[in-house]
């Protein structure tokens, strides 16, 4: 339902006419994204009633107050590289594109944190932080992912989780425009003491802010956030180079920085690999770590296919490396420290019958950029087949994850054998221990499918039906998806289905939602409504 002229005018008065639109042509650029075909059966989701480009916290606050006054649904987003960024529960909803709020407000070197606005992407902050010997964690969305989106609003996890935790673990305070329009400064920021911690006396609001997987734009707008930074042992500046005529995607960091090492360790079995991952965590030696990060990338798919064929001809089993290989980055402030970590790693690998795979220096540099900065992940996800899907996925103990992996493998294999998903021999499974395994493993089982191939799409839906069946074989592996991911509650009913299975968690979430958003104006598509319709 369209906004009335009075409503539209009220919003326009806040941001100015150049920063608001209800033109269908403009609006239809805010309802198309990857994953839509699988979820909505078309490229389009709900067309918003208007799109606004607020330029400040004050404008965000005024917009939210207007939404409460007129009972208009709203949803904010930053880069918008996610299905959950756009989908609205109804057409009387507006989207807030936060592109104009793009400042890095502070890098506090001494206290190792940065304060940013919503449109600052991860790579930009990483590069600025590197100048000061610091870096932030990476996430699977790659370098264009938003710092605030990944930290405060969505599930942000990736290869550096072993040393940095998922981005959600790094939030040190926020400025939060609540769905009522009130502004909450969380943690020490409230007392203007600096943004160094999100917790103060009394109950922490960090769980309410995002929990494990974020509210995906459903509980207001984070207009500023402080995130923890971690040590960077490389140079203050990095440069990607290539021979003349090689396109940017073929560029590599000239070498792995001297205080880092990039390695792949192969193990005789998956269980040996998992056991080693536990011990690597205990030893606290990895800067980045991931099971299976070895799919070869080429300039384009045709070039990539040629490389795969060459590997096969050379007798290199991509499948074996993918299922029993661990990619990891070691880093230290001193050469002695690095030598110690490498020695440790070799000892651990040796105990489990594993050993390093020889990698040419240029490939080591590529592995370093992939593991530390998540270069190549967008290519991996979308160029191969057009789209990807992550399911089943979960967090838990290593044994639990190994068990999930085995079951997932059995379920996914037939689709690949029939050629309905990309045939990788075994499913591509990403295993990422969190915080040196002190919080367990995170695992994602990935299927690469073509949403515009009817058979491939049907297979994907069939697979999702199985992996997300509340009475199916994966019922005991936790709530499906990442809480966000491709979950649109009014399509998938994940919380409705799994709430009763898992301690009625949905009731708590709905209570919090109702308390924060009494008028129900924060879009709940990728979160939860106070009352299920």
């Amino acid at each position, binding site marked *: 339902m369209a906004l009335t002229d009075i409503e539209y005018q009220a919003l326009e008065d806040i941001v100015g006419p150049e920063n608001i639109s209800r033109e269908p042509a403009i609006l239809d650029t805010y309802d198309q*994204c990857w994953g839509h075909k699988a979820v909505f059966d078309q490229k389009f989701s709900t067309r918003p009633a208007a799109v606004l480009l607020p330029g400040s916290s004050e404008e965000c606050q005024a917009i939210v107050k207007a939404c409460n006054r007129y009972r208009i649904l709203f949803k904010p987003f930053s880069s918008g*590289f996610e299905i959950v960024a756009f989908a609205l529960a109804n057409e009387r909803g507006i989207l807030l594109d936060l592109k104009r709020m793009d400042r890095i407000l502070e890098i506090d070197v001494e206290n190792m944190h940065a304060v940013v606005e919503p449109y600052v992407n991860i790579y930009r902050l990483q590069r600025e932080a590197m100048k000061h010997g610091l870096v932030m964690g990476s996430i699977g969305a790659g370098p264009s992912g938003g710092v605030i989106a990944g930290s405060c609003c969505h599930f942000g996890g990736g290869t550096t989780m072993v040393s940095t935790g998922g981005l959600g673990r790094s939030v040190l305070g926020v400025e939060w425009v609540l769905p009522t329009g009130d502004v909450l400064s969380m943690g020490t920021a409230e007392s203007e003491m600096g943004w160094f911690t999100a917790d103060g006396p009394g109950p922490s609001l960090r769980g309410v802010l995002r929990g494990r997987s974020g509210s995906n734009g459903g509980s207001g707008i984070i207009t500023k956030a402080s995130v923890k930074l971690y040590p960077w042992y490389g140079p203050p500046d990095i440069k990607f180079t290539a021979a003349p005529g090689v396109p*940017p*995607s073929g560029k590599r960091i000239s070498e792995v920085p001297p205080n880092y090492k990039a390695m792949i360790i192969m193990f005789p079995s998956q269980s040996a690999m998992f056991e080693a991952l536990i011990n690597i965590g205990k030893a606290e030696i990895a800067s980045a770590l991931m099971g299976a990060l070895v799919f070869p990338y080429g300039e384009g798919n045709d070039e990539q*296919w040629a490389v795969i064929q060459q590997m096969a001809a050379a007798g290199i089993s991509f499948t074996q490396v993918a299922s029993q290989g661990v990619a990891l980055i070691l880093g230290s402030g001193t050469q002695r420290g690095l030598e110690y970590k490498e020695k440790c790693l070799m000892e651990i690998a040796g105990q489990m019958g594993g050993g390093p795979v020889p990698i040419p220096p240029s490939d080591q540099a590529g592995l370093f950029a992939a593991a530390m900065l998540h*270069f190549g992940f*967008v290519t991996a996800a*979308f160029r*191969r087949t057009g789209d990807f899907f992550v399911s089943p996925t979960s967090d838990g103990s290593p044994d639990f994850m190994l068990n999930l992996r085995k079951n997932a493998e059995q379920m996914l294999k037939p689709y690949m054998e029939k050629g*309905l998903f990309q045939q990788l021999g075994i499913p591509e499974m990403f295993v990422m221990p969190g915080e040196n395994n002190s919080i367990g493993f995170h695992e994602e089982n990935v299927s690469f499918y073509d949403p515009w191939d009817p058979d491939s799409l049907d297979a994907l839906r069939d697979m999702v039906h199985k992996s997300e069946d509340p009475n199916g074989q994966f019922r005991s592996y936790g709530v499906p998806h990442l809480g966000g991911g491709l979950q649109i509650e009014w399509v998938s009913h994940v919380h409705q289905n799994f709430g009763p299975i898992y301690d009625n968690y949905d009731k708590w979430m709905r209570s919090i939602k109702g308390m924060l958003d009494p008028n129900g104006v924060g879009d709940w598509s990728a979160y939860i409504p106070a009352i299920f319709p």
Partner: protein
Amino acid sequence: MALKDFEHDMQRCSRCSYCKWIPFENQQNMDFIKGCPSAARYNFHAYAASGKWNMSYAFLNERIDHSDAFQDAVYRCMMDGCCDVSCKTVQDIEPLQLMYELRKKFVEDGQILPEHMLTIDGLKKEDNMMQGKKVDRGKWAKGIKVKDLTKEKAKVAFHAGCRYSYDEELWPIVRGALQILIDAGVDVGIWGKDEVCCGGRAESMGFAGELTKYADHTLEALKAAGVETLVNPCSDCYQCYKVEYDKIGKKPPVEVLHITEYLHRLIQDGTIKLTKQVPLTVTYHDPCHLGRLAEPWVHWEGKEVKVMGQMICHEPPKQFRRGARGVYDIPREVIKSIPGVRLVEMYRNRESAWCCGAGGGVKDAYPEFANWTAGERIREAKAVGAKALVSACGWCRRNFMDAMEDGAARIEVYDIIELVQKAM
């Protein structure tokens, strides 16, 4: 090709937004990482390449019709191709070629900007994009003794291009270039008042028929004059002859060179000597049409095939133009060969260069946007400590000057030809 032929590409845009920035691999200074002037200036997603995919798909699905908003987003684009380079670091799709088709479709449907129509009317009547009289086209060369290609044959044809022919302030550049060739003993000629537009800028506005018309004319003119090499001081013309003509199956049967390439040869073989000191710290602005857009056209006929079940490949393998094979080193080598000149690089260079703002009909229809874009480039040039901004295209040169007139920061602006002249 038709808009419909890009449907699969439209579906495959994941909305990663890489098209808004220069490739991550090329990002050096985080204050200069935006790649698309349109997306940077107008903010709504519609102004980025991804937005163009989205609107085109909505249009094909009859969800939207022609509208002022659609038109605005489609035409406020320099067609500079930076988005195309960035997108192709992660995808096998063709954003820039979609833009060509989109504009062609707009023109077919009569959705034409009045300012573009004025320019195209002028082109149809007077064979130039400057709304000048055909009879005045050769005035820039007045007094220079050179072969007339309408009457004589010459090995080298020097094509001044519309901008240089009618922009009097730039005449010293193009006259200087021609004189260098003559003095070097090159068997060179010009068409004078009978020179015509290449058709490239018209094509970029959506008037594809004009490209074909001028391609046919040019091929005949080259043949009649017995030309072996076509030399262009204008990067737009160079790219059009080299790439766009090839794209439509009318590749000239002659060697197509930019003036910097020809000068480079003359410097390398010692024909011209650069001896005078030019004490100046300069930065080089890669013209889009000499850089990423000048990558040779790659003809491909085949079909999409699936390997490994669902991996999308091509039979035969398809080589995408990803921008790295443009002309980048030769202009830099010419600059470096000038005694006293110190070349410093801007943060966005080669295939990631920020556009000057003059392309795609933007200068004709939205001069304030063109000037803003040029102003951003000048800001970058000053940020790297350059005292002068050097380009290799009359359109860039003009737009930088106009931006400064319009309030952009001041910097000395040169064409490479001018620097070479100073050093001779």
